[in-house]
């Protein structure tokens, strides 16, 4: 694994992440959300239709505690082989973004407590690394003790200490021939002092990069921005930075502006499940769309959409032969219309989700 920053602009950076042999991903980049190693709705033969930089996935060991389990993965020769995505990067992240966020309760020195599809489980470094090592991922995030923003100071300090202990344990359980693939987690919640302590301590470990944790757990955007700033100034610039727990486009932009390189987000998945398509313009200056012909905010609101997305359940789209976004070159926009997707959603057809997720 190699990471190099190519250019800077204020706090933001453009870089490239060299993952599995031959695979290079431009950063800032999104890690695709997965369930048991595969995207929720896009099968592997359709993944090639995504943007060429969409070649890395976020996978959580929490989906691999029962069925499948670490043995299944190991027998297959690693995660890439098990799910047949050998041309993709796999980044193991502890948190299951789609489940209830941990509130820090239930965690102990034995491990962090997580909600999984087979109930609440406590996962410690040994169990975590058993799965991570079976994965043979391109990068892996160490096991953190994340706490929400409202915990007492004492609990917060404990989370920083524990996260560091677990980082050390995880590192010791990483096979030597592996090379350095660990992203050390920086926590500390809303206490700037603790955030800085966590960042400085983590930076002393032999890690390949960092993951900013403890977000999406009750802090507001302003607090988050301040915490990120504080943490990122303490981290070596040449190492890759990942963040979990944020998702909205605005949040991503803010994080990238502060110096984040890779991120995961549940936003595409949530919109897909709700029957929404993202429509906000990606490039304001060169936008092909004339804002005069765009539906007004009021019209959008009537159909359940807004300036960032349209609600394809709405009868407003029953006869609409336009693609989801005019000018969009994605698979779905090239092949299908809003009317067809509206029909698929209303008849509860799975194809709707496949097309929307893309």
């Amino acid at each position, binding site marked *: 694994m190699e990471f190099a920053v190519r250019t800077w602009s204020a706090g933001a950076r453009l870089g490239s992440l060299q993952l599995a042999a031959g695979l290079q991903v431009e950063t800032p980049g999104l890690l695709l959300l997965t*369930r048991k190693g*595969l995207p929720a709705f896009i099968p*592997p*033969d359709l993944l090639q239709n995504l943007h060429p930089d969409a070649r890395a996935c976020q996978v959580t060991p929490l989906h691999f505690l029962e069925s*499948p389990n670490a043995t*299944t993965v190991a027998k*297959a020769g690693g995660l890439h082989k098990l799910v047949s995505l050998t041309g993709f990067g796999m980044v193991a992240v502890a948190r299951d973004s789609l489940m209830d966020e941990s509130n820090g309760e239930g965690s102990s020195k034995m491990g962090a407590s997580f909600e999984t599809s087979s109930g609440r489980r406590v996962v410690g470094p040994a169990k975590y690394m058993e799965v991570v090592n079976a994965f043979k991922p391109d990068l892996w995030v160490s096991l953190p003790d994340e706490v929400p923003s409202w915990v007492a100071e004492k609990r917060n300090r404990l989370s920083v200490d524990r996260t560091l202990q677990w980082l050390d344990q995880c590192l010791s359980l990483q096979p030597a021939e592996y090379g350095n693939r660990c992203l050390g987690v920086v926590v500390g919640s809303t206490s700037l002092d603790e955030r800085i302590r966590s960042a400085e301590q983590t930076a002393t470990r032999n890690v390949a990069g960092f993951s900013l944790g403890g977000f999406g757990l009750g802090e507001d955007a302003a607090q988050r921005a301040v915490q990120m700033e504080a943490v990122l100034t303490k981290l070596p610039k040449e190492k890759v930075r990942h963040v979990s727990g944020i998702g909205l486009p605005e949040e991503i932009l803010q994080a990238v502006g502060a110096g984040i390189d890779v991120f995961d987000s549940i936003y595409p998945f949530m919109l897909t499940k709700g029957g929404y398509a993202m429509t906000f313009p990606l490039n304001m200056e060169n936008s092909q769309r004339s804002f005069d012909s765009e539906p007004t905010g009021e019209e959008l609101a009537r159909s359940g959409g807004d300036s960032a997305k349209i609600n394809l359940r709405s009868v407003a789209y029953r006869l609409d032969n336009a693609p989801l976004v005019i000018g969009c070159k994605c698979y779905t926009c090239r092949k299908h219309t809003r*009317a067809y997707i509206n029909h698929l959603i209303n*008849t509860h057809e799975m194809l709707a989700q496949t097309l929307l997720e893309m």
Partner: protein
Amino acid sequence: MLTTPAMALRFEVLARHNRARASRLTLPHFEAQTPLFMPVGTQGTIKGLTNDQLEDLDCQIILGNTYHLALRPGADLLDSMGGLHKFMNWPRALLTDSGGFQMVSLLHLADITEEGVTFQSPVDGKPMLLTPEESIQIQNKIGADIIMALDDVVKTTTTGPRVEEAMHRTLRWIDRCIAAHSRPNEQNLFGIVQGGLDPRLRDICLKGLVARNLPGYAIGGLSGGEAKDAFWRVVAQCTAGLPEDKPRYVMGIGFPLDIVVCSALGADMYDCVYPTRTARFGSALVPEGVLKLKQAAMATDFRPLDSSCSCMVCKRYTRAYLHTLVTKEAMGSQLVSYHNVAYMMQLSRDLHNSILEGRFAEFVQSFLQKQFPEGDVPEWVCSAMEVAEIDISMCCAPQSRIAKMQV
């Protein structure tokens, strides 16, 4: 009576093996090869698969259900969109059924009268009537390459005068369908042979439909719980009574074994929800039969679903991994559906090519040997193959062969 049929298809038999035929069926949107299986895309989509994937899998004709499509998105909407092909963006062929079967099987208080099928609208409970005219009009709006006549279909387990009544009514309705059909040069109206399990009734229906000189014919009213031995006999009688130079479609057939037998008896087209439906329950179609992926043993089985299958799923995934997905993740459904459709299309190709290349008998033998490695080929299959004049004695275990000889 029509003398020159209005047709929008060409059917050329390229090769035969006794009753079986390998043919080219040229439709307005696509040139297909028969025998073939048609996956069912009830509401304008085949559960979870994209058109690109369906083309990759060699799907030639897809079935849409008129009843469902007329409800959502609606026939007029489809008409204004330029038809179902444009709406779905499917470049190949489509077939729609008449809507009658769904109504009778899905709706409470559906009733059949001379006028048509009366039922309660599932949307608002109002009484509604589907007449032959209306069924055809709706299908004209949907725009499929092949459309089906509205028939009076009864369950094969029905006995008594109702069966005869239904058969005669089907013949009266075909004339109404023909009269109502407004696009005979773009859409092919197939008649459906009814008559239950009674050869006398089937014969009357056959003669009546053949006299109408339709572009193609379907054998209906089967696959509804009748004994297999009765089933194959009806198919055999109908294929024998239908014209050589028109396609023959056995409706509602999806078990690979049934398709092989019907093809041996001279049928060309089949449809069924079975392959895609069974995928969603975690069952994969394989040469040996059905693989139930939910079984505990699958968790440690690192083989592909079918080692002889070259589909994307068999090339990439193991039974062990698919076991963890089926019935739990949407992806599991998609992947097994993909394989099952691949399997059925491979079967279609195998049937067509083996007849074309003069090795149909060997194909049938090999198929049966894989499905019945113990030699326990069902009696009905043996009887059917006798009529089809295909020797399968090597597939049957000695005891059963001797038992047959002693009879």
